[in-house]
């Protein structure tokens, strides 16, 4: 498979961000922050009216896109910025494009966008092919 600068990366789509997954992640992260679990706490803090996705779940969505785009490749480096919250029920789309090709290394830029609200995460990554 060949890759070229400017190539779009096939999007990874999450049709509806899962509140149940947030409960699993509270266990994985050993962090029962109620803004991820209890909508009443989110409302009381003035943060919205739906539970808030844990940040690393959003990173996982973007990693899923990269892993699907480069089968057998390894993410060597990845940086992502958290720009806004992702809420339970949101439709999230991770997408990106290739910015450099150097031998078996591919540089990409990517974002995570929420339908109706825009970009909530953005970043860059380097993938090593045939790791």
């Amino acid at each position: 498979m060949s890759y070229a600068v400017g190539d779009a990366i096939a999007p990874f789509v999450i049709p509806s961000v899962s509140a149940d997954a947030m409960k699993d992640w509270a266990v994985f992260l050993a962090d029962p922050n109620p803004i991820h679990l209890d909508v009443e706490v989110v409302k009381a803090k003035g943060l919205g009216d739906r539970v808030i996705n844990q940040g690393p779940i959003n990173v996982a969505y973007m990693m899923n896109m990269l892993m699907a785009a480069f089968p057998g490749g390894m993410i060597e480096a990845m940086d992502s910025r958290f720009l806004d919250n992702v809420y339970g029920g949101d439709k999230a789309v991770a997408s990106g494009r290739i910015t450099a090709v150097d031998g078996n290394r591919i540089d990409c830029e990517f974002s995570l966008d929420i339908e109706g609200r825009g970009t909530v995460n953005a970043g860059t990554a380097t993938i090593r092919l045939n790791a």
Partner: protein
Amino acid sequence: MSEEAEFPPAPQVAGTSLDGTKIFTVSADENERLCRSVGVTPAADGTAHPVWYYVATQVAMGKTVAGVCETCEFDVEDGPMMGSSGVRFFRPIMVDQPYKVGGEILSLVRKKSRKLGVMDVLTYRLRLQPADGGEAILETDNVWVLPRKELA
């Protein structure tokens, strides 16, 4: 006079060790649950989902999230926010392999933003290493924003 001189400096916490003592192992069952929770199937080659970099280092570092905040003289109930997360993988995370975490706080910088008011920007670095020693398999730098409502 600069704006920064209007408020007291951030606590001096750079260099604080975050070395952990816990052993962290991703079981195949946990990896499957995590993969399913983010909409993918687990890899068949024994590698764990790479996002375990964040989970493993947070869970097995030497302080809890609340403890890191306390070190920075910040109440976790005031709502720390993730600013960014970076990771450099040298090798994949493997299922059923025991790991330990080393790391340190790199900086805590007090700033004023139009959106958040006075805030401290915390940067810390963590490394995931085989529990029995050897080179780190990954290194991650996380940046958190700690809003200082009391100084706004």
